[in-house]
């Protein structure tokens, strides 16, 4: 392609033990919205880091407008017109919007001028943002706007967006897409990284699919179904979880007026949370990260305790009990963070099986660990959930995200919970493992257990839930039947207090 803005040819980068990118080639034309599609570990991040000058390729070449492009650092990349919005923001909470933007610029104009420019750009692209607001008080969506505007002020020719929607509500996603479409119409090329297939189908006009560091296909995502894209990504046919809707049974878990102060200043306070969970039911809890999901899981798992009657399991008060006492009565949990919370990364799978399996699987006797039994339990989890690992003595941290997640979820399910609480069960997990985990959740409910599934992935919630609710700033919306609910309706439940209008900088913040 001669009219390409950026052309990449045979880019290769190897890390110890893994080839992150293997001869990757593609081209982006001006104004094109180009999706980079692939599972976790497919090499998307490495590729864009090379384009942005953060990582040096081992071989291969890049060309910008036909001239060789070898950025030694992000500064050089920006000088060539490449800008990037990272998945994780690098903003200072204590500074205001304009100050933060000035910090990220190579040659910031005087503050007053900058503030005016910010307002201009934010109005021109429909991104509401007040330059004098303190970043600490902004929502995730607004923080992202700070990053985007910082990029736009540099008049980029290519804008790289790494998983931009993972922290946004559906309404905020819509605003973002309008901005991106406008940019593309003006001739800015956009490289859009995501594994959310519906988004890519809605936004992008070209997609490059990566698998294990190699380009395995290019297509126009609008001409493919989400399933076809997923199968290109995974390289195998996927099966969709299936379930029989059954009448829910009696109430298993009841939470009444759960209020919980955050454990530290960064936590979220839980406010007046009340709900019931029936036998055979999956209750889906949507919400943008940081709205109290971790705190809710901790309150249910027993890591945080409350007044006894706040939480009852089959009528018995459990609020005062610690994690092991709750396990004993059948209330089990799988936290979001696999490494360091649900599992100890440097310990073997056997030891990680003991971590939660001690009580229900009788893995200790008089205080002494029955390592043989622990190993057998770990082996049964590995077998039942198809965990790919050399053996039970492998360190948990050496497993891929999907395999460790299967182990973590499997470890709880094999303990036959009465109620299981899972937080982001398929976060960062490859599509095949995610499907297996969702099926396991459905099977567990079909056997009469109650499951609470906390997730940011709305498609996942629609797939597994009987009823859906959302958590926003520590409050839970009243659950609604999942049948017939729309993504928009969930979005409104989870949007809650955040401003949704397009350009309205004076919006009061609750």
């Amino acid at each position, binding site marked *: 392609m001669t009219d390409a803005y950026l052309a990449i040819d045979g880019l290769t980068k190897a890390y110890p033990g893994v080839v992150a990118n293997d001869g990757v080639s593609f081209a982006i034309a001006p104004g094109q919205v180009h999706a980079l599609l692939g599972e976790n570990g497919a090499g998307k991040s490495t590729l864009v880091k090379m384009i942005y000058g953060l990582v040096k390729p081992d071989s291969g070449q890049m060309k910008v407008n036909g001239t060789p492009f070898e950025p030694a650092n992000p500064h050089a990349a920006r000088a060539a017109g490449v800008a990037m919005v990272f998945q994780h923001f690098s903003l200072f909470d204590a500074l205001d919007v304009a100050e933060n933007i000035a910090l990220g610029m190579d040659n910031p104009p005087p503050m007053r001028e900058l503030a005016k420019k910010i307002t201009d750009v934010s109005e021109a692209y429909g991104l509401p943002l007040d330059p004098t607001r303190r970043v600490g008080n902004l929502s995730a969506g607004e923080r992202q706007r700070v990053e985007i505007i910082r990029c736009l002020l540099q008049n980029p020719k290519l804008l790289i967006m790494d998983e931009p929607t993972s922290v946004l509500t559906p309404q905020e996603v819509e605003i973002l897409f309008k901005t991106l479409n406008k940019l593309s119409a003006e001739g800015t090329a956009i490289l859009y990284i995501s594994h959310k297939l519906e988004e890519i189908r809605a936004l992008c006009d070209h997609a490059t699919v990566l698998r294990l560091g190699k380009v395995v296909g290019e297509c126009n995502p609008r001409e493919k179904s989400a399933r076809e894209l997923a199968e290109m990504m995974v390289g195998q046919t996927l099966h969709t979880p299936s379930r029989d809707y059954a009448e829910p049974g009696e109430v298993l878990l009841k939470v009444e007026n759960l209020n919980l102060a955050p454990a530290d200043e960064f936590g979220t306070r839980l406010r007046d949370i009340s709900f019931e969970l029936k036998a055979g039911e999956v209750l889906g809890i949507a919400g943008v990260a940081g709205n109290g999901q971790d705190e809710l899981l901790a309150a249910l798992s027993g890591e945080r305790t409350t007044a006894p009657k706040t939480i009852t399991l089959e009528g018995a008060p459990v609020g005062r009990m610690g994690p092991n006492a709750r396990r004993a009565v059948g209330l089990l949990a799988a936290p979001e963070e696999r*490494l360091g*919370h649900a599992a100890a990364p440097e*310990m073997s799978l056997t030891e990680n099986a003991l*971590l939660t399996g001690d009580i229900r699987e009788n893995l200790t006797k008089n205080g002494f*660990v029955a390592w043989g039994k622990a190993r057998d339990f770990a082996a049964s989890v590995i077998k039942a959930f198809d965990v790919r690992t050399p053996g039970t003595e492998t360190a948990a941290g050496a497993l891929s995200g999907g395999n460790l997640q299967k182990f973590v979820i499997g470890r709880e399910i094999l303990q036959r919970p009465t109620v299981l609480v899972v937080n982001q069960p398929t976060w960062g997990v490859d599509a095949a493992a995610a499907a297996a985990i969702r099926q396991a959740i459905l099977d567990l409910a079909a056997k009469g257990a109650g499951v609470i599934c906390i997730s940011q992935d709305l498609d996942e919630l629609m797939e597994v839930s009987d009823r859906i609710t959302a958590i926003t700033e520590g409050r839970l919306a009243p659950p609604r039947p999942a049948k017939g609910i729309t993504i928009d309706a969930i979005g409104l439940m989870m949007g809650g207090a955040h401003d949704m209008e397009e350009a309205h900088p004076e919006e009061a913040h609750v």
Partner: protein
Amino acid sequence: MSLIRLEKRPAPSRLFSALTPLMAVVATMIAGGIMFAILGANPLEAIRTIFWDPLFDPQFGPYSRPQLLVKAGPLILIATGLALGFRAGIWNIGAEGQYIMGAVVGAGAGLALYPSESPLLFPLMVLAGALGGWAWAMIPAILKTRFGTNEILVSLMLVYVAENILASVSSGLLRNPDGMGFPGSRNFRRDFPAASNTEIIENTGMHWGVVAAFIAVILAYVLMSRHKMGFAIRLAGEAPRAARFAGVSPTRLIIFCLGTAGALAGLAGLFEVTGPAGQISIDFNSGYGFTAIIVAFLGRLNPIGILLAGLLMALTYIGGELAQLMLGMPAAAIQLFQGMLLFFLLAMDVFANYRIRIGTPEVAK
């Protein structure tokens, strides 16, 4: 690209984890040798005097061999207790104070009953010694669990408090009434046999403190590898959130680890003061509580490793004294030599987590 690069290993190398103590000893010998050469001594002779002569020299061996156990005993006993806490991320660096208080309380209990000849007297003193160390360690433990204070600071500062208590009782409360006004308590070995910690086997240095150290090593090994508490300790050290998720109570863990370390240090103090030191005096303690921190890390916080590290450290002590005597080395040079050992051990840890690559990186195709 530079020619020598460090490259992170996918997983820590087990081989190098086991090898680093040996590599650290060799590196210490080389760097120490250079230092001795600068000080004007023959480096080979100095190294031989420190590592070989105490054990095998026909002239000094018979005297210094028993000293090996005498010195290693308290180091191992204290380090074993400290390592439990270190594994859990609980940093008790005040073992010296717990050791002193164990000695003061244990010896005080015995001296209060002077001149009893009951066979129960010594066991009672052992118990009192452990209790003294335990109680002293409970101060940082309770302050930490109740008020969230930093155990590093509190335990360390209590060492200086303990030293002042020691100075006070050795010239006051516990002073030998028949000592003609000199500071220091009655000498247990000379004046009070029923309360003294005698050698079990003549001329081996094997006293009850050494026996206690061996028992502590075995119990600690079983605790860490077989018991739920050992698992909780490791889990809390490696992944504190996972430990809480597994139902491990941080409070109980802090009380257990500090308490055990304190009790073992207290035992070491009691055995020392009633045996090798002989009496409570202002300076009986000789810093075992601090050196034990080095021993704990040199032994990789593993009970068996601590056993070997304690013996090695004792050897450098004895050999160091010999080098002072024979080669006129300053005492500071010997301390520097011991410091090098810890320095190199920590530095060598790099090889467990990284590998060295020489030449430009190859491109995988």
